[in-house]
């Protein structure tokens, strides 16, 4: 049972917003006493997903939540865009696959950096990615 303790919705439309969101994520991570390594992992994963959202989804929103499960606290980020969507998710999750001439490590890399990862996408409607990192995970 995961409880959400605080919610904060942030709009992401421009590249400058990446810095803003990163600071916000860092703030909540520090609040729940997440270690430096996990903070860096979470922030890096967040910035991967943000860049994806800006590049392929024309921006969107990011929901920043502090969640708790029993004695564990964590940060859950939900990225939602109304972009073109991903047709083949397993392909997109493969290392080195990219439609945009990048390294193709964003989605699979982000998944490796966090504890929980969930991606939902509908072609023509948009993509939602949820990541969760526990403070001691």
């Amino acid at each position, binding site marked *: 049972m995961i409880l959400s303790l605080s919610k904060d919705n942030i709009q992401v439309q421009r590249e400058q917003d990446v810095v803003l969101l*990163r600071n916000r994520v860092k703030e909540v991570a520090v609040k729940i006493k997440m270690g430096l390594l996990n903070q860096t992992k979470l922030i*890096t994963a967040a910035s*991967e997903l943000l860049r994806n959202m800006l590049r392929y989804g024309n921006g969107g929103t990011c929901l920043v939540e502090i969640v708790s499960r029993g004695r564990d606290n964590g940060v859950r980020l939900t990225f939602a865009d109304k972009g073109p969507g991903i047709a083949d998710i397993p392909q997109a999750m493969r290392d080195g696959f990219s439609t945009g001439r990048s*390294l193709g*490590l*964003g989605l699979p*890399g982000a998944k*490796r*950096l966090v504890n929980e990862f969930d991606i939902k996408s509908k072609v023509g409607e948009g993509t939602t990615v949820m990541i969760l990192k526990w403070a001691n995970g």
Partner: protein
Amino acid sequence: MPFNIAKLLENQKKNILELWMKNQLEDEGLREDLITNEELRAQSEELVGSLVANIGAGGSTDLDGDNWSPVIEILGGIAITRARQGFSPRETGKFVYSLKEAILEVLQEQIGDDPKMLFEESRKINRIMDGLTVVTFETFIKGREEVILRQTDEIAEISTPVIRVWDGILALPIIGTLDSQRTQIVMENLLQEIVDTGSSIAILDISGVPAVDSLVAQHLIKTVSATRLMGAECIISGIRPEIAQTVVHLGIDLSSIITKSSLASALAYAFRTLRLEVRKQVVQNK
């Protein structure tokens, strides 16, 4: 005889201005450090003049109409100047609200014996002044945003300096996020400097980069490749422990690049490559 608000206001213009000035000057928060009394009076006079003239001319309370554009322009000008001068929103808001106070007070004085008419006219004035207040704030915020945008540009302009640490060794400290635009500037500066100084080793220090994601890594790899094409070796230094672990988890392969944890070790490596030796001199006493 139908009541003519325009005429009344025209006659009472001086009164309104005096009252308004009094309201403003009475306010304890008046920023005499930012604006002199004369300037304030000039601004107020201009605004009252055009406002009264406008109420007289059209009578329409719809601020979107063309006839309101001179008033809005004057008000906008004042709001933007105030934003730049560093007035707070409250002070700017008071400037407009106190005008409303003044006009209502004059109306009360003049037609106070006819409550129905007073209400009608007050409502009209209220509508106009509220519209003007909204305009003031919109412009005020726009003025502030311009200041912020200019600062953003300035920060972006503080381009990353290329430092010549030794004969043939360049260092380039990168602070902040590496986006595409920044990488372009960094790369241009670095490559040009390599040509100008004939250096053979460049050290890119990323101690000041908060997070290295795949895009930043890609930019770094590109910079290193370009440097190699120019015949120079590129060392990336300042990789913190948490960054190292994150990069590994992300699956980015930086093994083809020489990386060091600190600028000092990168410099030491550069010295070795150039066959330079740094030694502590031993003074021998006899």
